[in-house]
């Protein structure tokens, strides 16, 4: 038996490690560096109905142990993803989680319906938490009723299980989590980025052209851990945790907090080989902890 294997709705994961959406494009670039089949899954860049150029540059700024981004969901659009990106990924033995974004229910539904029919798309990740687009995105993620309704609408058309990606920029994330569970979500992914800003020292103006950006990286990990800890105790559906995962120890923390698998975002930029490195280190980490099967760690922070 594979000690690292994890089973989640729609997903048979060789291991609980997957690159987070937006930090791995559609896999091509990292595919030049290592064999993508070793990954648990791949969360591809957000796909919208029409192709998008995204926000003006600069789009990224560094912060203490973190970074801000305001890419603005640049992507080749549903058609481009279906025709070029997903077929290319079929050469790898790895389940794809398609991150679905939109501005209103109708386009979420349309993207979800079509992209869930791609043979290698095994789950959807409903992006209701992108802080970098003017309409849609995060507005769905801060209102429980809207989050519920969008989830239900997408569930109705999706051929594969639906995970909903939550925003940390809310007073009570448990409420949103319960709402999407009630809406039929098969799982939750969390957290998306915290909204933040960096100013230019000389001019005092925002560095990011979009003014605000999403904060990610090690800096946000304590917030992510706390939210996973909380949400995992109020919902029955599994969680894919993320926010600052940068080394093997962080994976243990997210599982302990209550996540069943873990996504790695910003850390890919710091170390492009971080996913394979973590996957390689996990078995000896399990030995150290005296654990046989990795799932045994899930939620141990709040189990007796």
């Amino acid at each position, binding site marked *: 038996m594979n000690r690292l294997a994890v089973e989640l709705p729609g997903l048979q994961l060789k291991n609980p490690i997957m690159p987070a959406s937006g930090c791995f494009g559609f896999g091509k*670039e*990292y595919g030049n560096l290592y064999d993508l089949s070793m990954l648990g899954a791949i969360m591809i860049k957000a796909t919208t109905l029409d192709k998008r150029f*995204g926000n003006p540059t600069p789009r990224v700024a560094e912060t203490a142990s973190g970074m801000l981004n305001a890419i603005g969901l640049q992507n080749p659009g549903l058609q481009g993803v279906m025709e070029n990106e997903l077929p290319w990924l079929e050469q790898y033995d790895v389940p794809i989680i398609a991150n679905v974004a939109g501005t209103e229910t109708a386009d979420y539904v349309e993207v979800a319906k079509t992209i869930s029919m791609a043979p290698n798309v095994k789950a959807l990740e409903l992006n209701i938490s992108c802080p970098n687009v003017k309409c849609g995105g995060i507005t769905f993620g801060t209102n429980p009723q809207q989050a519920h309704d969008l989830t239900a609408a997408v569930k109705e058309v999706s051929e594969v299980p639906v995970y909903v990606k939550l925003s940390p920029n809310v007073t009570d994330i448990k409420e949103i989590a319960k709402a999407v569970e009630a809406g039929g979500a098969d799982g939750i992914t969390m957290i998306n980025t915290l909204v933040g800003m960096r100013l230019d020292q000389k001019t005092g103006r925002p560095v990011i052209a979009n003014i605000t950006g999403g904060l990610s990286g090690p800096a946000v990990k304590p917030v992510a851990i706390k939210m996973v800890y909380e949400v995992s105790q109020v919902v029955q559906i599994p969680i894919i945790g993320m926010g600052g995962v940068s080394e093997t120890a962080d994976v243990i923390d997210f599982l302990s907090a209550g996540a069943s698998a873990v996504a790695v975002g910003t850390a890919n930029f*710091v170390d*492009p080989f971080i996913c394979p490195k973590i996957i390689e280190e996990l078995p000896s980490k399990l030995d150290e902890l005296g654990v046989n099967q990795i799932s045994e760690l899930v939620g141990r922070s709040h189990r007796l």
Partner: protein
Amino acid sequence: MIIQDRMRVTGQREIAKNIFEMKLTGKLVGEINSPGQFVHIRVSDSFEPLLRRPISIASIDHQANEMTIIYRAEGRGTQLLSMKKEGDEVDVLGPLGNGFPVGETSPGETAVLIGGGIGVPPLYELSKQLTAKGVTCIHVLGYQTADVSFYEEEFIRLGETYIATVDGTKGSAGFVTDVMEKIGDGFTTYYSCGPMPMLNAVQTAYTGKRGFLSFEQRMGCGIGACFACVCETTDKTDKEYIKVCSDGPVFPAGVVSI
């Protein structure tokens, strides 16, 4: 091929005010295939600063398996880099991007290389390769002031070299474009790297000539995955945008909308 290499520092010295020349050795050197490519450097093992720093390759010595980078120690990251000593290891990702096309100028032809400030370094390796194949290189190098100018001797050894400083403390006073006027248009190609306004001025001055410009953008991944470093193209029919890190940093003049 892009590799991640823990390269060893074989030399580090301040060659002008806050401008450092660092030599690094490692197997990454063997992968470099064109002048103008860059590397993405992790300046410490800490998560603060977090991101890698993109720095151009200034010179390659395949014999010694050594490369040179030249950088300005300005922010947190480059300051940390400047504190590395001989023998220290540095985590380097590269070589990245597509460099200057040496093949676009033929032996016997003349190329003008125009650099501004910290955009000068990649032109050095370019000039070495061009002159080695018999191209005549004319160098036009612009700096703010004399005390941040560097590599004058090195460029002179390769060909005609003009220096311009904004305050006139070295060479002629003014911008590279002022010097360019004096050179005339008896050349085949031009290659340029420097701040955006300079690239714009050069491109405008040399409309009609075949030129290649190297761009800068804030980067995340450095390999084409994160869409941080995009620029719009002038001709939207093929591609609406290019990524500086993986499509560039060097583009033919006119491709990128400045």
